């Protein structure tokens, strides 16, 4: 299968490295970063491209762009791993649309376009007889979308509860375990690279909210936007509150909640027993789903990280490849 990759940050590089290392039967015919691109009909030399990127900061010819890759390269599947813009979804949204328009499958880790335009992109893909997959957009390495869309088919999923933001979970874990104040725990998270310089997106629950929108629209067949999610972040929590929860053998975690029957979509800090399966430590993610047949299932794993995200992306690519082989 021929693929092209847009975006050569940590995730894009992780995917390329894995493809070079493991014999997966994938030929990379084009890559693009924000300043250049590289196209080769019979497959680029991955090692050379990675070395060039490392030494010069760009991956190929500065006169070529991502748009050139989309329009002129020869490929069956486009991997879109450019930075997320949660407000406009661009430029990823345009890239994905044009690739689907060409009749190529798309695999993305980009939350923006999936949260904003899922229904449109999905019907475009259907019209063209191709697939769009986005496992990496929610809970990193945890195959939660695949589990709900494939493995649990036939079940009715009555509720979903999840720890969907590793930064918040890290801060809350440190506040509970070390008695740190919110400010101290946030400063520590920043130093370790778990939190951005501007942590608003994480600590106010927006990132978790976007993931809830993706889950609601892709798995539960809803058509909601971020405005439909009731969001409370963790930035106003006190260390006293964690201690009060502790008195009852409980703690506080930022929980995303979907109850499809009630159209309930909520992100909020919640009191939760310390021995509850959703109480995971550090930057881990966890999701519990309630189903009518399989009962309750809890998934725990790494919600972020370049190799973990690459794992989800490769899973999607190879799923599409294997399905094609069966046709």
């Amino acid at each position, binding site marked *: 299968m021929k693929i092209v990759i847009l975006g050569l940050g940590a995730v894009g590089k992780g995917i390329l490295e894995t493809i070079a290392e493991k014999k997966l039967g994938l030929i990379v015919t084009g890559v693009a970063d924000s300043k250049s691109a590289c196209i080769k009909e019979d497959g680029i030399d991955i090692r050379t491209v990675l070395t060039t990127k490392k030494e010069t900061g760009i991956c190929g010819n500065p006169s070529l762009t991502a748009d050139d890759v989309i329009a002129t390269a020869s490929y069956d599947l486009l991997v879109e791993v450019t930075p997320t813009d949660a407000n406009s979804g661009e430029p990823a949204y345009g890239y994905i649309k044009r690739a689907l328009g060409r009749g190529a499958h798309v695999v993305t880790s980009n939350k923006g376009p999936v949260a904003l335009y899922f229904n449109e992109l999905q019907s475009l893909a259907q019209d063209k007889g191709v697939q769009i997959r986005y496992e990496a957009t929610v809970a990193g390495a945890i195959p939660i979308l695949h589990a709900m869309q494939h493995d649990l088919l036939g079940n009715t999923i009555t509720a979903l509860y999840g720890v969907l933001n590793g930064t918040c979970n890290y801060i809350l874990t440190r506040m509970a375990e070390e008695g740190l104040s919110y400010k101290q725990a946030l400063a520590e998270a920043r130093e370790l690279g778990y939190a951005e310089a501007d942590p608003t997106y994480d600590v106010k629950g927006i990132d978790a909210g976007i993931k809830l929108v993706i889950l609601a629209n892709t798995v539960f067949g809803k058509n909601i936007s971020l405005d439909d999610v009731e969001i409370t972040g963790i930035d106003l929590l006190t260390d006293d509150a964690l201690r*009060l929860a502790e008195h009852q053998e409980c703690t506080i975690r930022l929980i995303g909640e979907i109850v499809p029957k009630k159209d309930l979509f909520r992100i909020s800090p919640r009191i939760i027993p310390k021995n509850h399966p959703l109480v995971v430590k550090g930057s881990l993610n966890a999701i519990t789903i309630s189903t009518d047949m399989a009962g309750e299932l809890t998934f725990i794993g790494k919600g972020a990280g370049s190799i973990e995200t690459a794992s989800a992306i490769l899973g999607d690519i190879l799923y599409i490849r294997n399905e094609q082989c069966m046709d």
Partner: protein
Amino acid sequence: MQVSMKLEIRDSPGHLVAALSPISDIGGNIKTVIHEHDQENEEDSLSVEVVIEIPQERLENLITLFKERGIHVLKIGQERFSYRLSVILIGHLVHTDLADTIDQIDGTGYAEITHMNMAMPAIEERSSAQLMIRSVTRQDMEHALEILRKVAEKKGFLLIEPLEETR
């Protein structure tokens, strides 16, 4: 509603089961049965304590059924509130009329704040308080919570709800 009852029944085979059957017939749920041979009782009678869960409006009916079957109800103790929920409020709790915040729930008649644990770090800083709410039914708890959400919004509190309620 949770009710504990002390019943006096005839101490002969089969009578205990027969005595308890009206409870499930009426839609009640038996939580526990403790039977004791009371010294003061006459030899052929047995006193049994049962704890049952039953809709409040059916309690009268159950007592009538017991009487019809010759079972004496010696004592009824009601645990009025069978649901409890613990929440945490963060904000300027005292200076926004704490009594009013509590009255909003206590005034409902179907739910009460029965316990409070508060931390007040400094005068200008926000306090944190854990409140225990008890209610008659699950639906009452949902209503009480709805009231508390509104109060929190109006007074600028952060309300932290539990993920699951306990009963």
